[in-house]
């Protein structure tokens, strides 16, 4: 179980604000943290991983205190058993796929690493360097690398946002399977509605550092509303620009289908 309370001053583009959030994740729960860019969601994840230090707070995982500002406990990232998956993969360019996966293993077990790669359909690429992989393959390797060290918690910082939609769908399923097999809780930062609906057991929405909503994904996301910003058309399509959760989204509709 993860219990975290984090207070940290953040510097936004329109002034400073406090990230002040408290959360609990149990069992094999998949918690998605939703929010706009700069709302503090990634910082929250980085504080749990020990990559950033909150001004105040308390972080406990499976009864082990990782951070306690009152007792001045602050374990470095190396001693917090997390599996962190970065948005842009962060694979080591100087190592092969197999070396990347084995890097974090406490007991170097080549057979297990190969087995993990086989499960993800990547066995044939084990001797390739990351620059020879596609985006989807890179993210699979990054996920396997994080899981190979048998972490107590999986932290995912928008891991699928750089991938195309079809691949994203495929990897969402794999991600969920791997997390369930590993029997660990997962915290994922996202700003993608569909992804959240597919993956999350529970959602929290952060705005300017504060948790403004928490609950089942269907309920939280039903509240999100799109507003029409502009409408234009060409000989073939109608092009709608919508504002959804603070972001502009372009939607093209074939005239024939109308």
């Amino acid at each position, binding site marked *: 179980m993860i219990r975290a309370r984090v207070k940290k001053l953040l510097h936004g583009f329109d002034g400073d604000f406090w990230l002040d959030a408290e959360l609990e994740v149990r069992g094999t729960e998949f918690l998605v943290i939703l929010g706009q860019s700069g709302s503090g969601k990634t910082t929250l994840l980085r504080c749990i991983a020990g990559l950033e230090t909150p001004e105040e707070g308390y972080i406990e995982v499976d009864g082990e205190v990782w951070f306690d500002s009152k007792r001045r406990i602050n374990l470095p990232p*190396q001693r917090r*058993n997390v599996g962190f998956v970065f948005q*842009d993969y962060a694979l080591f360019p100087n190592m092969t796929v197999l070396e990347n996966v084995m890097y*974090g293993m406490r007991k170097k077990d080549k057979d297990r690493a190969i087995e993990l790669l086989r499960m993800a359909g990547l066995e044939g690429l084990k001797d390739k360097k990351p620059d020879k992989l596609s985006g989807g393959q890179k993210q699979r390797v990054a996920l396997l690398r994080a899981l190979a060290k048998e972490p107590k918690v999986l932290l995912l910082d928008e891991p699928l946002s750089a991938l195309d939609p079809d691949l994203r769908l495929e990897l969402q399923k794999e991600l969920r399977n791997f997390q369930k097999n590993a029997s660990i809780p997962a915290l994922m930062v996202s700003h993608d509605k569909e992804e959240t609906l597919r993956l999350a057991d529970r959602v929290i929405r952060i705005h300017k550092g504060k948790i403004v909503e928490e609950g089942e994904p269907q309920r939280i996301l039903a509240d999100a509303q799109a507003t029409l910003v502009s409408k234009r058309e060409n000989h073939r399509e109608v092009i709608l620009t919508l504002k959804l959760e603070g972001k502009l989204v372009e939607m093209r509709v074939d005239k024939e289908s109308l």
Partner: protein
Amino acid sequence: MMAEINPVPIWLTVKLSIWTTIILLIIGVPLSYYLAYTKSKLGLVIEALTTLPLVLPPTVLGFYLLLLLSKNGIIGSVWYRLFDYQLVFHFEGIVIASVIYSLPMMVHPLTSGFRSVPRNIIEASWTLGKSKIETLFRVILPNMKASVLTGIVLSFAHTIGEFGVVLMVGGNIEGQTRVVSIAIYDAVEAIDYKTAHVYAGLLFVASFISLAMLYAINRRWSL
């Protein structure tokens, strides 16, 4: 013609360059790591100090080093007490002087190299349980090979060609401090242009090869 050329200055120059480069690598890696990642203002002061040898005339640097390394200087007096001979006018003295003189040649490429390594692969290594030292040797340095090799080649080449600082600190002592650049000066003074030509040609070729290697390294490993 080669039979008349004294090989001692050549050997001494190579020995000086190798020692200087090895010591610079040992000092340069931790110093550049600190400079690349520190947010302290002290980092700016240290960075400026390490760059000083680039802009100071070698005679100015040589003069201060002479004072520091001489029998009555801060470093020289300690050395004298420990080893019973003085640093100046000895090989060890010119090694220390060369290390300081060529410091920017190692520190600058390494600092840029450290800054060019993506932060997320360093953090990924930490979250995978690896210490800062292990991350340095297994992730950071292997991903900045071009910078490390550039630092090595530049330091080596710069030391081969140095003159002023070595002359100020080491003088012109056969077998101790008379490196090739000083031997050229010596030969020209004695109007022995033949010897000067051979030594100068050697330095020219060595410097050219070093720079060609440098460009080859950059072409091979840069993006």
